[in-house]
């Protein structure tokens, strides 16, 4: 055995910034896990509410929030939306809370300096509540249903079939391309053990590879569509029959109560 093999090696790796690699992986994995959420995990009534009603009331609340000048109404909508936290799954709950607090802190930071200009605490508070309320409305919609439900929900809103098809395909290919990106980022991470000064350059190549892959997938998809007699027409499938159940009744009653009590 050679002596140098037995000697203790004091290897201290040089400092190398790899934060962006792990951050990218985490971001994309977060997006993918959001898109891959399974309906089977959910038992609460809020998941059974018809998506048409959810989209309708979300729009009503978002529009009414932007029009309101009443801080009571904005606060009530915030509280109403926060009450849904009791009915969503643990993962969704943590996501909604995180996004709610980020929205509140961000809007406070943005609005705070305006107090030096206008000294109106009421208007500043109203703006913060309106922003956090509308972000909560959208997040409650997003996390109380599943991506495919939103696509089918748009069907009931007379969105043209072509737009729905593009939307649906985009969601599917975000997952496909996202998986590719995660694999490539993991490969870069493995290749960067020690020091890798070429990381930034490789990242540009990664974007390029992703673009070329998307071109390739696009051609494959087009060929598959032609093989399935795609002729350029996109008839939208008829949505499911509208069944008004107990969960729908609860949701409509609660939403109407919040709207009526605070507006009257």
């Amino acid at each position, binding site marked *: 055995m050679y002596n140098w093999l037995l000697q203790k090696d004091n290897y201290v790796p040089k400092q190398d910034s790899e934060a962006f690699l792990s951050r990218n992986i985490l971001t994309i994995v977060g997006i993918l896990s959001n898109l891959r959420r399974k309906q089977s995990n959910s038992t609460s009534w809020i998941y059974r509410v018809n998506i048409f009603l959810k989209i309708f009331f979300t729009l009503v609340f978002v529009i009414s929030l932007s029009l309101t000048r009443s801080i009571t109404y904005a606060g009530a909508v915030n509280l109403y939306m926060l009450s849904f936290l009791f009915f969503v799954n643990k993962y969704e709950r943590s996501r909604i809370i995180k996004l709610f607090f980020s929205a509140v802190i961000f809007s406070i930071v943005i609005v705070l300096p305006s107090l030096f200009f206008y000294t109106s605490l009421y208007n500043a508070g109203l703006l913060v509540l309106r922003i956090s309320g509308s972000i909560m409305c959208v997040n409650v919609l997003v996390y109380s249903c599943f991506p495919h439900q939103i696509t089918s929900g748009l069907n009931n809103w007379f969105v043209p079939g072509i737009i729905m*098809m593009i939307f649906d395909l985009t969601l599917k290919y975000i997952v496909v391309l996202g998986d590719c990106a995660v694999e490539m980022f993991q490969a870069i991470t493995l290749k960067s053990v020690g020091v890798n000064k070429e990381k930034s*350059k490789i990242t540009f190549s990664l974007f390029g590879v992703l673009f070329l892959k998307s071109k390739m997938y696009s051609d494959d998809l087009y060929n598959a569509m032609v093989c399935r007699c795609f002729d350029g027409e996109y008839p939208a499938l008829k949505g499911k029959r509208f069944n008004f159940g107990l969960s729908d009744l609860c949701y409509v009653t609660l939403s109407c109560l919040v709207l009526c009590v605070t507006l009257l």
Partner: protein
Amino acid sequence: MHIPDNYLSPSTCAIIGAAMVPVWSRCIKKIKYEFAFKNIPSISLMSAFSFLIMMFNVPLPGGTTGHAVGAALVALLIGPYAACISISVALMVQALLFGDGGIIAFGANAFNMAFVMPFAAYYSYIVLKSISPQKRSWKHTSIFISAYVSVAVGSLIAAMEFGIQPLLFKDAAGLPLYSPYPLSVAIPAMMIPHLLVVGFIEAFITVGVYSYIEKVSPSSIYELSYSKLKPVYLVLLFLLVLCPLGLLTTGTAWGEWGVHEIKNMIGFVPKGMVHGFSFSSMLPNYNIPALASKTVAYIVSAVTGVVLIMAMFGIFMIFKRTITKKGS
């Protein structure tokens, strides 16, 4: 640059959203022509690509990271029309599924990021590249500058949208109802970080990725089409966009003083001016008597002026075409 709901008034969002309808319509027509009926898979895949580009972080000096919009890159790779539609779809996915960017503000976000940015990048690239089309280094410099310009123009438009809110939407006490910062605050607040950081990130990513694709698969890149749009129209469009900056100014431009202002300045009014030619215009000093707010009157005057010039130009073109037809 994603504007959440309630920073802009619903009427601003509605107007900008309505302005986007003809843009989307034109882009869809153009894509149908360019891609034939391959358009659906192409748009979907490019939307997914645009979405992911917006999500990626790139390393920045000092150990931090930042992310690009990718509008310039997508515009140069697939053309501005396809870029407009694919970025719009990506923004729709972000708004509806991730709560990033508002639902009511979707039109405004699409206007800034899916229309202004890709078109600004694409046309500035065409103009810059035409200076020295053969030089490879100049080509990359042009891409760098055009990506930077796209961020600068996009952020300027977004800042203007924010900045006109306190001028247009106030409560009875005169306090702002939506974004509280006037143009004098909104423009530097938006422009400084975008010009110092985001613009450079966008430019570096665009040049890096474009060079890689050009090297590996040059046929995948969109072929530049020199449309009939002359640079002078771009300049006019840019000046049009800058119109609201006039709201920041105070006083009268040099040499454009009225009789009262001259009296205040020099203490008397020259005789020739007292009895000189006097014309009372429809909108004196860009004020409209029916509108109480000077700001609204200024914007309405600007829109009226543009519409009148375009109408006169249209009539002139019809007249010219008729004469040419008769002559032939």
